[in-house]
């Protein structure tokens, strides 16, 4: 069986996936997730090692590695790089067949991707200059409220009278929340307000691409049930979430790796790509 890897070096967390292909199709062999931290290069290596360990293979067994995410050019062992946009589309197409729209909410950016019938990117928009409405916004809110990341989602679901969050600035939201707390508002209502605010913000951006079903949410924030629910509320449509949502970029990268292995390495674009990335 052919083994290939995808490594998604995100701003916040680094994800690696090993995928294998044999006669009866493609399967995910291992996945690993670590905080990116300051040393991007190291993070990528650690994530990759961890994957190989899980799968019980050596790096030598891995035929091809595609790097993606904002830190993709820092991956020393990658054969080539691809944008997270292509990878998320590819991954979603594979794990959630029929996907036409991908909404990726990561640590520091949010994207919407229009996906074609064969998993190709039709169109996309991203917010990467302002942390408003990203995972970071939520993480901040959670911190101010003294709630763990895993709990904010469930908490917000319990809200009944969501508060109105005026600001979208990740910094100023603190003071909003604090004043609501001291006004005696219930944490679940505040959290629901926060989630809805982000959902609105994200969708106003996402609507620049034609949002069509099937809508798949990817990225770490997809692990937040409250956010998924908020998106569905604002959209008025169902949103699909794969258990591997946060790994979607890495999965897509791994799939591309397999495709690369399936063809000769002479394809000039890939070469040039790999070279240009080093300098």
């Amino acid at each position: 069986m052919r083994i290939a890897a995808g490594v998604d070096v995100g701003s916040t967390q680094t994800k690696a996936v090993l995928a294998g292909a044999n006669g009866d199709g493609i399967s995910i062999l291992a996945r690993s997730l670590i905080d990116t931290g300051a040393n991007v290069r190291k993070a990528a290596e650690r994530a990759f090692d961890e994957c190989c360990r899980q799968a019980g293979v050596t790096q030598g067994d891995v035929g091809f590695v595609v790097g993606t995410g904002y830190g993709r050019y820092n991956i020393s062992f990658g054969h080539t790089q691809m944008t997270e946009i292509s990878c998320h589309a590819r991954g979603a197409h594979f794990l959630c067949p029929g996907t036409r729209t991908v909404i990726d909410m990561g640590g520091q950016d949010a994207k919407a991707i229009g996906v074609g019938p064969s998993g190709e990117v039709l169109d996309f928009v991203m917010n990467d200059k302002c942390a408003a409405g990203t995972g970071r916004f939520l993480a901040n809110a959670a911190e101010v409220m003294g709630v763990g990341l895993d709990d904010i989602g469930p908490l917000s679901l319990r809200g009944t009278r969501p508060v109105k969050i005026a600001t979208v600035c990740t910094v100023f939201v603190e003071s909003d929340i604090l004043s609501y707390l001291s006004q005696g508002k219930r944490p679940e209502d505040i959290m629901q307000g926060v989630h809805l605010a982000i959902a609105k913000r994200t969708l106003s951006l996402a609507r620049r691409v034609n949002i069509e079903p099937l809508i798949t949410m990817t990225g770490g924030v997809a692990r937040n049930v409250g956010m998924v629910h908020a998106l569905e509320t604002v959209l008025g449509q169902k949103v699909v979430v794969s258990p591997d949502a946060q790994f979607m970029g890495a999965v897509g990268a791994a799939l591309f790796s397999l495709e690369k292995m399936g063809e000769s390495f002479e394809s000039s674009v890939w070469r040039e790509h790999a070279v240009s990335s080093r300098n």
Partner: protein
Amino acid sequence: MPLVAGIDCGSGFTKAVVAAQDSPGGELRILGRGRARSGINVDQAAEDALIQALAGNPKSDLNYIAATGFGRYSLSFRDIAITEITTAARGAYFLFPQPGAVLDIGSQTTRAIAVKEQGRVSSFKSNDKCAAGSGMFIARAAKYLEVPLEHVGELSMNAAHPQPISSICAVLAESEIINHVSSGVGVDDILRGIHDSLADRAGALLKRVGLQKELTFIGGVAHQQGMVRALEQRLHVKVKVAEDCEYVCALGAALLGLRRLASRN
């Protein structure tokens, strides 16, 4: 002798100044100043700040209370509400009596004001949507660089190789800053980098209202010498800082309060 209070209900801190003036145009006596975290109960914060400012005098002696700042309308015991832009201009002009540009950087807002004779506002521009240009940015940075806010100023003063901050977002800048730390960049150089980026943003606003050779810098951030230095170097201007810079709006309010009082009786 009329006793007047100016209260600046800022988004971060509430500041009060109590002043007296025996005759209109006569010499002004500042009885005291007070400062309290704003929180949500504006009256409470104002009360606390006012008590300090009254320096022992009973509150009942006050003839007039002028409220200013973001929370001015929430202050129940006010005689008048005036915007923080008007009061900033008045206060600044009182301290440095000549027309020119005034820069006010507070917790959540940055303002550039062009001031003309008698401290009248001729034009102004403000930024209150994005934290990247505000005192909050520094306050946060100081927090996770584990530097007390009071020391931010001189640290950044001593920066030898300011570390530019490329991100235009206070939040995205944080990961950038963390990378700097872990790659061994000095805290002072990082803080100065932040001050430089703040100075550039302030510069954009100031240019819109018109900036000459000099600039009066007020608001809490003016405490930070590093910021002052950054402004001087990036904008090539002489920066004048009022001592007790974050009380300037409260002072301006008190001054206008006195005028209203005079015109009343």
